[in-house]
């Protein structure tokens, strides 16, 4: 089974799925906290329009989980606020 790493844990996925689809299939509905309220967010529009699903992939913040295709060995981490430590 193909897996990528999400916050240190292994997420199994089926090649062809996006990171967002794989996370939802694994029972994970959120992977970001908002800048102001610090509340959790995951998929909303599912097609790249809303930017709610932002996640950090291979250290790059602000990637749309609904668009980025899952690949074995990717490192995915929850994004806090803007995803930039200095903000």
């Amino acid at each position, binding site marked *: 089974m193909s897996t990528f790493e999400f916050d240190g844990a292994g997420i199994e996925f089926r*090649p062809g*799925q996006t990171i967002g*689809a794989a996370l939802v*299939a694994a029972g994970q509905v959120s992977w970001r906290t908002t800048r102001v*309220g610090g509340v959790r967010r*995951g*998929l*909303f529009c*599912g097609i790249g329009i809303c930017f709610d699903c932002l996640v950090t992939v291979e250290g790059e913040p602000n990637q749309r989980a609904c668009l980025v295709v899952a690949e074995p060995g990717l490192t995915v981490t929850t994004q806090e606020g803007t995803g930039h430590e200095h903000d």
Partner: protein
Amino acid sequence: MSTTDVLVVGAGPAGLACAATILEHSSLSVVVVDAGHGPGGQYWRQPAPAVGADALDPAELADLHHDRARFDALLHRLEQGRTDGRLQLRSQHHVWSAVPDMQGYAVHAVDRGRGPSHVPGSTTVARALVLATGAFDRALPFPGWDLPGVMTVGGLQALLKAGGVVAGRRVALGGTGPFLLPVAAGLARHGATVVGVYEANRPARWLREGRAVARNAGKLGEGAGYAAALLRHRVPVRAGRMVVAAHGADRVEAITLARLDRAGHPVPGSDQRVAVDAVGVGWGFSPQLDLAVTLGVDLTPDVAGTEVVAVDDAQRTSRPGVYAAGEVCGVGGAPLALTEGRLAAAAVVADLTDGRVPADVVSSARRVVTRQRAFATAILRAHPVPAGWADRLAPDTIVCRCEEVTLGAVRAAIDERGARDARQVKQLTRTGMGWCQGRVCGYAAALLSSGRPGPAVERLVAAPVPLGTLGALAEPTARPSRRTGISDDAM
């Protein structure tokens, strides 16, 4: 930089049909650019191409596609075009700008198919530009709509069609429009318990649309098919109901439904709580106008007041060399989008070459478009946003999800500081200023401040562009390639 005769933005039904028809009836070169992982658009959305024993096989999801054969025929035509060196399909390319150029139109895109840290840009100059950018779900705020697990109806569908994933075990669908039914049927077939489809409008509204219905009898059969599927899966479809709240701590755990009165207002005391772990809401679709607006093509309001690209009966926009087809011209479903794509192709071929698409093909396409546009208008009239959509919003309900602006702040801008449209609300509260540029909240902000959908918003950049990519574009390092239309656009 590369050049081509025709550039089509969007590989959904409209863009694919347009490209295939041009290839068939001319010798023009065509580039199709699309943000998705492969061709198909929303209607024929597929998993990303993948290999391996555990890879998602599109065949597992074949039941979600009713006219796969048509899609395959279009792909076959495109493949032939590729073999002949006349067609390039650039998937995972997001067009962020299209501007007039000496030779036609310069289209700037970023390639998001090479990983998050390498996002190269490219520019293609085309003699003719076809906008087939489709539409996206229209959402309206309600208390709890920002909880994880609450999605748009189309989002649930995309997750299923492209990922093979049902978003929850107990799913509720709400909003309005015929699209709720196929999504519910697909989710039920793939293992979800669909606790209910809550359609805000009552079927009686359709009685006023007899003419359009009679001329589109096939659509009735389609609707009946979904109704039968829902019956089989024991999915209750309840009209005159609206999801007025979602509840939960870190994710959605329940929703509250209310019954709507004849005027479209939630009836006090009619609340009912239902346990769910996923919700899809959708109030129809908004056309994806970003490129059209910056190009300055004329727009026109549809019957519900939403602006769409104005086209003549050959899909020409007000700007010479720019054509539009599919839901960017108004929401109307995939068959209409396909037909408009063919019509746009006929116009392109007539305008750019000495040849033409056979007259009988064009006239029959035109008849189909007229008939199906009438049906699309009937759908809009039968499925309006209910007058009382905002009755149950609370002061702390989030309106703008990106900037986390509450209804209280929006109302203060309207009531105390005189904001009269979405633009003024934005200036005063940051509603619509975040990542999504108001694509999600703009409709609600317009309704709240002006009572109408409001004018289309100009967004100078239609898709995010990394600064480094912009910088590289400014340096004139790329040598113009020969005008073959099939040049490699690596920059």
